[in-house]
């Protein structure tokens, strides 16, 4: 009843907002709001992150814009792939945006991230432009890895990619955390993997070393429910991924709630700097198939995907939260959406027309400082060039 009254008052308000927008005047009614998150689940922790999160209008706008940009960017990437402009493989992040955006919100650019092959969203939140992400996918010089990596291999400062081998990045993340600790930096590493990778043996080797040496490492299992075409339940003897570090404490967080992810990450960063590693399981969902060649409907129903889109979508839910708490108006949302559409559309155009790599790029970056006169051995001497 109360909700109905609230909604109707919003409707009345929104009429006047439309008028305001027409007159070029945006109204927002609050500078900050408080949000209650789905309770965390804790493993070997007495206290967890706060379930009451206060956040500002600026934060709301920023998180919304970032999540929406990733969504539109991924849709565009999907279309470019279907048009065969993007080659290689292509794994889309749609549905999981709240994790990258929420985590980045609680760390600094000096903290490190390493993730798996579903890396486009992470690349963007780590500061790479949409243009540079898309140009990497289309293999252009302007791509963030100069077009040499493609979908699974994107990098930025303190963002170690973008890794193709399932689970292989996790021990690397522990090593990065070791470096932070050894150098006396007050920084952490977040090592991300999926529920599928959670069953790889080297994950457990990484847990052990990280705990043994109390490394400032947050292990993050982005549990989207499916390791390729096999559901978590059919692949894992234990699906409470936040407990699977055993002696490593863990937190389960609603990965579809950007504010919950942000708060859990804030808590975890603080924790790992004092006590060593922690594990976060972020419960999420991927809308697309595992990769572009997987329609994503042979192992789950279309209804299931639709239901998540309607009930759990991280962007849709967050939009409701920030509009209903009067932080942001619907008109502002619409305006941001239009801006993003244009930004991503322009970036897509550039990523198609930017210069391609010169042929000798095939031979560069194999070695640094090769011996004098060293040539990359190809079979045709006429196109063999000196390594650079």
């Amino acid at each position, binding site marked *: 009843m109360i909700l109905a009254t609230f909604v109707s008052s919003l409707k009345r308000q929104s009429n006047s907002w439309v008028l305001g927008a027409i007159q070029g005047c945006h109204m927002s009614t609050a500078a900050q709001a408080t949000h209650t998150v789905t309770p965390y689940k804790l493993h070997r922790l007495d206290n967890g992150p706060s379930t009451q999160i206060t956040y500002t209008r600026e934060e709301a706008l920023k998180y919304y814009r970032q999540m929406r940009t990733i969504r539109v960017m991924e849709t*565009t990437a999907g279309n*470019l792939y*279907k*048009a*065969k*402009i993007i*080659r*290689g*493989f*292509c*794994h889309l992040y749609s549905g999981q945006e709240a994790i990258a955006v929420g985590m980045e919100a609680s760390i600094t650019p000096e903290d490190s991230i390493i993730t*798996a*092959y579903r890396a486009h969203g992470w690349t963007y939140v780590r500061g790479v432009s949409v243009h540079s992400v898309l140009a990497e996918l289309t*293999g252009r010089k302007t791509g963030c890895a100069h077009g*040499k990596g*493609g*979908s*699974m*291999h994107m990098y930025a400062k303190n963002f170690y990619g973008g*890794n*193709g*081998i*399932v*689970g*292989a990045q996790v021990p690397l993340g522990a090593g990065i955390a070791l470096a932070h600790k050894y150098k006396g930096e007050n920084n952490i590493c977040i090592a991300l993997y999926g529920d*599928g*990778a959670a*069953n*790889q*043996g*080297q994950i457990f080797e990484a847990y052990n070393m990280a705990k043994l040496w109390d490394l400032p490492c947050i292990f993050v299992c982005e549990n989207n429910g499916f*390791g*390729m*075409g*096999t559901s978590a339940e*059919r*692949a894992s003897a234990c699906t409470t991924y936040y407990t699977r570090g055993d002696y490593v404490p863990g937190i389960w967080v609603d990965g579809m709630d950007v504010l919950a992810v942000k708060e859990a990450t804030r808590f975890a960063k603080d924790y790992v700097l004092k006590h060593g590693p922690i594990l976060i399981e972020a419960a999420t969902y991927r809308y697309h*198939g*595992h*990769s*572009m*060649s*997987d*329609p994503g409907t*042979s*192992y789950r129903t279309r209804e299931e995907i639709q239901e998540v889109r309607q009930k759990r979508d991280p962007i849709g839910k967050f939009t409701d939260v920030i509009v209903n708490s009067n932080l942001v108006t619907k008109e502002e949302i619409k305006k941001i959406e239009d801006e993003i559409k244009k930004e991503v*559309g322009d970036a*897509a*155009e550039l990523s198609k027309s930017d210069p*391609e*790599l010169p*042929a000798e790029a*095939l*031979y560069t970056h*194999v070695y640094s400082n090769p011996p004098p006169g060293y040539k*990359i*051995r*190809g*079979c*045709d001497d006429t196109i063999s060039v000196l390594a650079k």
Partner: protein
Amino acid sequence: MAGRLGCLRFLSNTSSLLSKKSPVLNQTPVSTRCMHFNYVPDTPAREHGETTRMNLFQSITSALDIALAKDSSAVLFGEDVAFGGVFRCSVGLKEKYGSDRVFNSPLSEQGIVAFGIGVALTGATAIAEIQFADYIFPGFDQIRNEAAMYRYRSGNEFDCGKLTIRTPCSAVGHGSLYHSQSVEAFFAHCPGLKIVMPRGPIQAKGLLLSCIQDNNPCIFFEPKILYRSAIEEVPIGDYTLPLSKAEVILEGNDVTLIGWGTQVHVLREVAALAQQKFNVSCEVVDLCTILPWDRETVAQSVKKTGRVLISHEAPITMGFGAELAATIQQECFLHLEAPVERVCGHDTPFPHVFEAFYLPDKWRCIEAVKRLISY
């Protein structure tokens, strides 16, 4: 393990996806996917009986079906295998043989291989799938240090000869760094293993059934570009083709061209081109089994022609061609009219946007043929 899932399936799905209106698509010319060779179907042997039209993945399914039917100890497992596998090689087998015999494994390559070794140690038949050859390396230790050595180190007390690992390999036109690699040479350094790579559906079925029955651990590499593009009449019944036996698929007198897997088809075109442009007669040899390989057939051909080109997609340095070249120079030294030529992938990672430059295509091969005949 990354990118996985059904490299080629997108072809059949693309048309419906493309029909959705998209500003990006509407403005962009759609490039066509082109293969770097034409597939020439093989002719089935009459003694293998009735045939039907199959592509390579269907012929693999047919082989697996037969293996499961006639050997009640046989189990088939790997990532996404139960719902048909990302390349559709095991479609319908779970329904036919039950989920205790055809099942999905977690994303755990080392586990899959090691589990298979354990199954095979008991004498049961284990058929494991690694979803892409690029992802086999977490299992490399198990293959090299356990599978390949078990028999030797136990004085023949134990072996995992009933293990067969199937895995898709080689270029597919757009696979980039981690869905394109040809990794056979790594395993060719492991005595105790058998390594096989077919060139088409008839061969795939016969060789796979041989591998499954063979009492040595086998790695069966399936060139993924052929799964759908290679179509021919394949015998529907049970038959095997000999391991460690190379096949002369085209007879000639002037130059021997040696390859395996997809590259055999490139070499077939090179032979046609050489005949047409230079009136040079090439003999094309498909090695079929990479370990242990058929020295006799190779040497016989090279002794006849005196000139040899070896070609594979894997990088040239320490590619299996190096072993062939070394053996050929030793066994055929006085017959050689020119140094052994190798046309291979370059010594770089498999590139993202330069696949066409990286692959040992027919133009690079024909240049080598020119060098051989003008030496």
